[in-house]
């Protein structure tokens, strides 16, 4: 039974409306975010200009965790309520999340070299984010390791849920272990501990990353829906050819 609102055509029509807005917001937030981030905000008294890397490192890290949570939620919906579009949403989210995680690692390393004097250190926060990256790749590998797409979705959904335990570890790694990585300074109990002049570009860039995620997600979702229909049509095409043979045989045989 297809859920009423889960009908792909209805989703595609919805996506047609949202997608231009998402694209517009992405550009709007990126332009303003970059302006504030690169031009209209002061250098840090300790870190100097390298603090500007924060405006891309932190949003990327936030998005890495957000995408995995979204993916795990979609997988849960797919497994529990057999929601056809949820599987596709998870599969569409995975590559985006993997890219954000990669960016968080790379920008972090580029920020780490001037500040800590080394490109990489086996610190609790960095290591758990590296594991998150492997979980994304594992999900994608498992997802199309089977000829039957359905098997791939179900197996990788379970992996995504199992891997979700890593997300709280990343979030609280800075509190549980004495890490070189600094503790949370925005999303924390006492409210942000960053000066407004640096907070605005950070928030703008975070919104830009989210709008970008929504935009690319919609594009990939439409691709996944088309691919799903192609698979269905291919199976039917083969069955029709088989049926035609049997009918022909029936007539002749």
């Amino acid at each position, binding site marked *: 039974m*297809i859920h009423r609102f889960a*009908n*792909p*055509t*209805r989703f*595609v029509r919805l996506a*047609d409306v949202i997608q231009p807005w998402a694209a517009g917001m992405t550009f709007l937030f990126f332009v303003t975010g970059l302006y504030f981030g690169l031009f209209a905000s002061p*250098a840090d008294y300790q870190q*100097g*200009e*390298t603090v*500007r*890397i924060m405006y*891309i*490192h932190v949003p*990327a890290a936030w998005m890495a965790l957000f995408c995995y949570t979204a993916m795990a939620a979609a997988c849960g919906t797919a497994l529990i309520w057999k929601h*056809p579009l949820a599987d596709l949403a998870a599969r569409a989210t995975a*590559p*985006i999340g993997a*890219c954000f995680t*990669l*960016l968080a690692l*790379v*920008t972090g390393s*580029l*920020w780490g*070299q*001037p500040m800590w004097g080394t490109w990489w250190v086996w610190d609790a926060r960095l290591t758990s984010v590296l594991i998150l990256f492997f979980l994304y790749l594992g999900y994608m590998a498992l997802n199309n390791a089977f000829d039957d797409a359905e098997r791939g979705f179900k197996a990788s959904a379970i992996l995504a849920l199992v891997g979700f335990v890593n997300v709280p570890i990343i979030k609280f790694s800075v509190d549980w272990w004495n890490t070189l990585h600094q503790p949370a300074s925005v999303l924390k109990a006492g409210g942000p501990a960053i000066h407004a002049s640096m907070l605005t570009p950070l928030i703008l860039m975070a919104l830009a990353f989210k709008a*970008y995620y929504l*935009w*690319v997600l919609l*594009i*990939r979702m*439409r*691709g*996944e829906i*088309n*691919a*799903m*229909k*192609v698979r*269905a*049509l*291919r199976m039917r*095409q083969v069955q029709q050819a088989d049926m035609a043979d049997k009918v022909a045989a029936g007539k002749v045989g």
Partner: protein
Amino acid sequence: MAAFFDMGGYGGFVWPAYAIVAFVMVGLWIMSRRFQRTSSDELAALNPRTRRRQQEPNDET
């Protein structure tokens, strides 16, 4: 202007970071768009009835 690019001596780290972010995000967008294009062309080829934007509701999933 040069001071801006120098980034207080850290230009060698800030600009590559921004460049990689731009490269990966634009690249992912292009790959996603190409994935959507090829799959919808494949769908159109297999199923000439449905035009690129389905007009009549086609409930088959």
